[in-house]
């Protein structure tokens, strides 16, 4: 193995700038003649906007402009689009009420943007925003997910019952038959708690219009700048796409929340031409809590049918998913396509049926958050599997062993074909690392000390590497899901790689450089990775769904292959041999079976100084593009085992050991992969133990809108994790990789809640399992 090549634990190229304060995040960029924006936001969850009086505000010092929703609507601007069409069970399309970039006539959640104030300084903008007088007519708010469809009020007139769609997936009749003829049916009612993503860098944007070129530049904290540009130009503002450059510079964490096209940056771009100045806006933390797209928020009943041996014969899942006040960019596909298709889990369950009702409420839009649909699916599957084991009196490991899929490829009853995996191997490795055999003794020892010990499993699967465009299109996607890459070899043999993936913590500048350096046989320091700028990168669909390496990395590998293929032709000419006789290995082109060779850098130089060059047959230069559209999803899978100890007097849960064994396929940089797993686990454990978004049930006020009210996992809330991998290489991409960014967040909540319910002896405890909830469950059992 090359010291800095594929598989090496290389420290990160990007770290020096981050560690020395030289990172450049959106808010760090200040443009000449910079102006600043503040948004007037609705203080009510649901209210008519009767009038807006901005005269006094407009007269305040430094104020450059104030715009309302009516000002924008008057210029013919429509609303933000939803990127995925979901049809109802009867084939009719989902309801897509307009999502104005500034509210017109009605505000639909606390924090809904009502007006924008642009001023010379941020302080002036904020002061004037406070002085804008809005006359609201407060309406009853729809807040509760489970009861939204029965609420008296309607969030949108176009969806009087607040139902966006009711979607079904799978063979309902087969499942009903399995339930009717089962030896036993386990049933569980569970809630997947609503989360607020909380990237530590708040959302930010800085939009500038250039008169001389009649074009725009938008700096924005975003995970997919080309998608942002396409959606904003083509679907909202009507700006020609080639007249807009979107730069997503260093981005301080995304976790899904920076995928979407938001109203704020769209308004900024619109206003930048009218104001004639660059306009910067950076969310303060409360704005982030109020207006970043939230995650999860499902209410589910799941039933599992089993035969006498604990073999699963059918599973039925009925879910209500809250999409919030408006459909955010990918809101519609998260609780459907990214959810129901994963409900087979790692098991041979022959029939699965899922029905999802998506409801509008007077809360912030809900969209993808780390895992996006797959954590919700895993939570359903792994909680009911563990419950089924308890109902059947089976060991939780044993019920999994009896039901694991063992032959591949495997077509599930919910539409996916798993290409490869070894679920037994991950489970057995995790069991060993967790010392499952020693658990009864540890439990007895804890009991002697008056403590409750529990252990829980979660054998998750996810579909990553999003996505085969034709499959996604058939399922309602309104975009392709390929990725693009460009490998630009410079005359000196140094290489700049342009990728449509975007790194906001994942370390692509390192991982992708390792791949390219390995393939080209050159030092990693000779390779630079560029991303996040539509002015530099040819195209891209961005980073989410653990797709960057499997899809973006593959595009780069395809471009490298083209570079090598062309290099062989140049080398053949230089070495006076046939193209087909040239081999490329360790950075050297060689005539097979001889010692005649020419190094990569010489070939690069020849390509740009083509004095001795087959100009009649070959263009000069060494610069190749590739677009890669995957043929299947990738299927990372693994087993997480969590062991907890609970103090029955306080209900406080301590995680004494958390073990994760994951199969991500081949691994490029184990250090980075472990870091991704740790971070995912922290978010999953955060969901299960600490985090929960709470809206007041009557008023729709967000009660968890600061770090004093929303419990973020801190260093002393988390244990050290025991992580390991088992590798089955993905069969359909050249690197054999599957993706690792979301697994931790997907697998861990179920493992933790299975452990807590095991310790307490409860059927269910709602997440987050706060000491109060756990204590109450212990009292109920006593």
């Amino acid at each position, binding site marked *: 193995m090359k010291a800095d090549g594929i598989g090496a634990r290389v420290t990160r190229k990007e770290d020096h700038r981050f*560690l020395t304060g030289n990172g450049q995040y959106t808010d760090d960029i200040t443009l000449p003649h910079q102006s600043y924006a503040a948004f007037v936001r609705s203080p009510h969850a649901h209210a008519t906007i009767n009038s807006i009086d901005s005269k006094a505000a407009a007269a305040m010092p430094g104020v450059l402009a104030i715009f309302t929703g009516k000002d924008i609507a008057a210029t013919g601007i429509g609303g933000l689009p939803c990127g995925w069409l979901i049809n109802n069970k009867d084939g009719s399309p989902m309801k897509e009420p307009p999502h104005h970039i500034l509210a017109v006539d009605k505000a639909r959640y606390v924090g809904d943007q009502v007006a924008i104030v642009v001023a010379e300084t941020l302080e002036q903008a904020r002061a004037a925003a406070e002085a804008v007088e809005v006359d609201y007519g407060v309406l009853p708010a729809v807040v509760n997910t489970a009861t939204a469809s029965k609420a008296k009020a309607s969030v949108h007139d176009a969806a009087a019952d607040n139902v966006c769609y009711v979607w079904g997936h799978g063979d309902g009749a087969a499942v009903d038959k399995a339930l009717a003829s089962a030896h036993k049916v386990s049933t569980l009612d569970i809630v997947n708690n609503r989360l607020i993503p909380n990237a530590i860098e708040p959302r930010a944007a800085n939009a500038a219009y250039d008169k001389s070129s009649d074009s725009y530049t938008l700096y924005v904290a975003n995970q997919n700048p080309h998608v942002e540009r396409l959606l904003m130009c083509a679907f909202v503002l009507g700006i020609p796409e080639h007249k807009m450059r979107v730069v997503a510079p260093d981005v301080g964490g995304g976790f899904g929340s920076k995928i979407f096209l938001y109203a704020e940056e769209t308004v900024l771009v619109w206003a930048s031409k009218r104001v004639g100045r660059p306009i910067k806006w950076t969310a303060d933390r409360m704005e982030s809590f109020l207006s970043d797209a939230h995650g999860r928020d499902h209410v589910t009943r799941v039933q599992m049918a089993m035969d006498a041996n604990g073999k699963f014969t059918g599973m039925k899942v009925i879910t209500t998913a809250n999409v919030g006040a408006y459909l955010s960019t990918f809101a519609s596909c998260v609780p459907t396509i990214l959810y129901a298709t994963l409900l087979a889990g790692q098991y041979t369950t022959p029939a699965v049926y899922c029905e999802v009702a998506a409801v509008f409420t007077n809360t912030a839009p809900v969209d993808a958050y780390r895992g996006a649909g797959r954590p919700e699916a895993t939570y359903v599957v792994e909680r009911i599997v563990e419950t089924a084991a308890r109902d059947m009196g089976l060991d939780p490991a044993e019920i999994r062993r009896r039901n694991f899929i063992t032959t591949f490829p495997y077509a599930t009853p919910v539409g996916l074909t798993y290409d490869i995996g070894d679920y037994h191997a991950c489970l057995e490795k995790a069991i060993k690392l967790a010392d499952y055999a020693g658990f009864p003794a540890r439990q007895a020892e804890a009991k002697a000390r008056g403590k409750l010990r529990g252990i829980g499993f979660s054998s998750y699967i996810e579909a990553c590497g999003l996505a085969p465009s034709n499959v996604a299109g058939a399922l309602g996607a309104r975009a392709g899901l390929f990725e693009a890459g460009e490998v630009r070899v410079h005359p000196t043999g140094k290489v700049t790689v342009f990728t449509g993936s975007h790194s906001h913590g994942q370390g692509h500048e390192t991982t992708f450089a390792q791949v390219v350096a390995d393939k080209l046989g050159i030092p990693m320091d000779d390779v630079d990775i560029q991303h996040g700028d539509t002015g530099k990168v040819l195209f891209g669909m961005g980073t989410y769904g653990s797709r960057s390496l499997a899809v973006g990395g593959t595009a780069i590998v395809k471009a490298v292959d083209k570079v090598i293929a062309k290099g062989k032709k140049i080398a053949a000419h230089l070495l006076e041999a046939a193209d087909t006789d040239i081999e490329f290995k360790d950075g050297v082109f060689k005539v097979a079976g001889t010692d005649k060779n020419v190094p990569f850098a010489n070939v690069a130089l020849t390509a740009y100084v083509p004095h001795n060059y087959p100009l009649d047959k070959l263009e000069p230069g060494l610069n190749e593009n590739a677009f890669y559209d995957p043929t299947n999803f990738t299927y990372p899978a693994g087993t997480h085992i969590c062991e907890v100890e609970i103090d029955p007097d306080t209900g406080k849960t301590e995680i004494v050991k958390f073990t994760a064994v994951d199969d991500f396929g081949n691994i490029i940089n184990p250090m980075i992969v472990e870091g991704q797993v740790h971070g995912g686990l922290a978010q999953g454990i955060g969901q299960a133990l600490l985090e929960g978004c709470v809206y007041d049930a009557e008023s729709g006020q967000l009660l968890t809108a600061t770090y004093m009210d929303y419990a973020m996992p*801190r260093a002393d809330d988390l244990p050290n994790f025991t992580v390991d991998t088992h590798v089955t290489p993905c069969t359909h991409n050249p690197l054999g990789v599957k993706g690792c960014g979301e697994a931790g967040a997907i697998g861990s909540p179920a493992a933790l809640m299975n452990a807590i319910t095991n310790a307490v002896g409860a059927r269910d405890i709602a997440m987050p399992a706060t000491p109060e909830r756990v204590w109450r469950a212990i009292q109920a059992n006593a």
Partner: protein
Amino acid sequence: MTVNVTMKVNGKSVTADVAASTTLVEFIREHLRLTGTHVGCNTAQCGACTVHVNGRAVKSCNMLAAQAAGAEVTTIEGLAAANGDMHPMQAAFKEHHGLQCGFCTPGMVMSACELKGKMPNATDEQIREALDGNICRCTGYQNIVKAVKAGLAA
């Protein structure tokens, strides 16, 4: 109302007339254009804005620039040696993958450096407790703890 503030930042004397309401982090970021210090919450809960004021780790969003008048302030930009070599704590964060997106990192490193003076032999548990005022959303903290331990020992 404006006030004149003079302080030493990263060894250099700086002076400016600023609005009395200017926080130290605004002064550092907007007036001095030292953008390595970040704002994550503006309410002293996330720690991204941590700098040293007279050797103490301080959340600079929660202190007025005027309150730091006359003080010696060190920001993340002031840690590395003049020749560009990283401070041992910075080097330890790189070596142990103690950062991902890098946004909380400057504050995290400044808090860790303060710990070096206070508790050079801190255990994992003490490090976790000491970092309670710095939120990281990316790493799950395990590698941060590893890095801080190594940085304390370096």
